[in-house]
């Protein structure tokens, strides 16, 4: 929850970092960046309250699926975007093939998670 709240806020604190990672075929990069930021903040709020936790998990799944094209595009451009993020290409592949599916699986198994009183 804290991770998604910080990640969401970061879209507004460091927009240039994220704008570089949004594929060029998206017309309005600032709009998509704001949507992703708001989405992550809403997901964090959703996870906080037991009643909305399941909706929060579905929100995470939606965001993770929506981010896949950006991860593919990051590999396509050589895993390096000026003034944004530069990593070895294999790291970007591991992120796409292993870490991303793991995050999806992790979110899914916690959809019915209840904090015990």
């Amino acid at each position, binding site marked *: 929850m804290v991770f998604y709240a910080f990640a969401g806020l970061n879209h507004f604190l460091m927009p240039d970092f994220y704008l570089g990672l949004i594929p060029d075929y*998206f017309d309005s990069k600032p709009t998509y960046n704001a949507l992703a930021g708001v989405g992550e903040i809403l997901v964090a709020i959703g996870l906080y309250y037991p009643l909305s936790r399941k909706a929060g998990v579905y929100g995470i*799944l939606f965001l993770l699926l929506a981010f*896949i*094209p950006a991860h593919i595009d990051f590999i396509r451009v050589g895993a390096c975007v000026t003034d944004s993020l530069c990593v070895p290409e294999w790291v970007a592949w591991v992120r796409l093939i292993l870490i991303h599916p793991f995050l999806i699986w992790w979110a899914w198994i916690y959809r019915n998670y209840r904090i015990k009183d």
Partner: protein
Amino acid sequence: MVDLCIRLFVDTALLMLIWMTQLIVYPSFTYLKSDAVSKWHPLYTKRISVLVAPLMLFQLFYVAFQLFVAPSYYQAGSLFIVVLTFLITFVKAVPKHAAVETNPNQAKSIFQQLVAINWQRTFLYSALFVWTVFELYLKLTS
């Protein structure tokens, strides 16, 4: 143009399969007695997998490949929909099929649940097909 024709072929094939499953196959299971379900269902899942699995995998890898070589909003949206259909298939539908094998006596209610789950995939495959046809139309008229 060739890439869109390939997409149209695979999207159409999956569209036909999902609507046939939804309107004919799953409802027919609700009319079978439990002993018939326990005999036929394992064969059905094996045979339908031979048809569906290669198509689904091809669609996934082809859309991902297109996103590398010819990225566009259409390809990105397609990948989103395709991955969503994979999630619904393996996270929601496959466990229900496993439940039919272990509880053939409750097959009727499980297949009613499968029909409900399958409407999600039916909608997604239909949307994907319409989007591909629209992209093809744009290409042909531009």
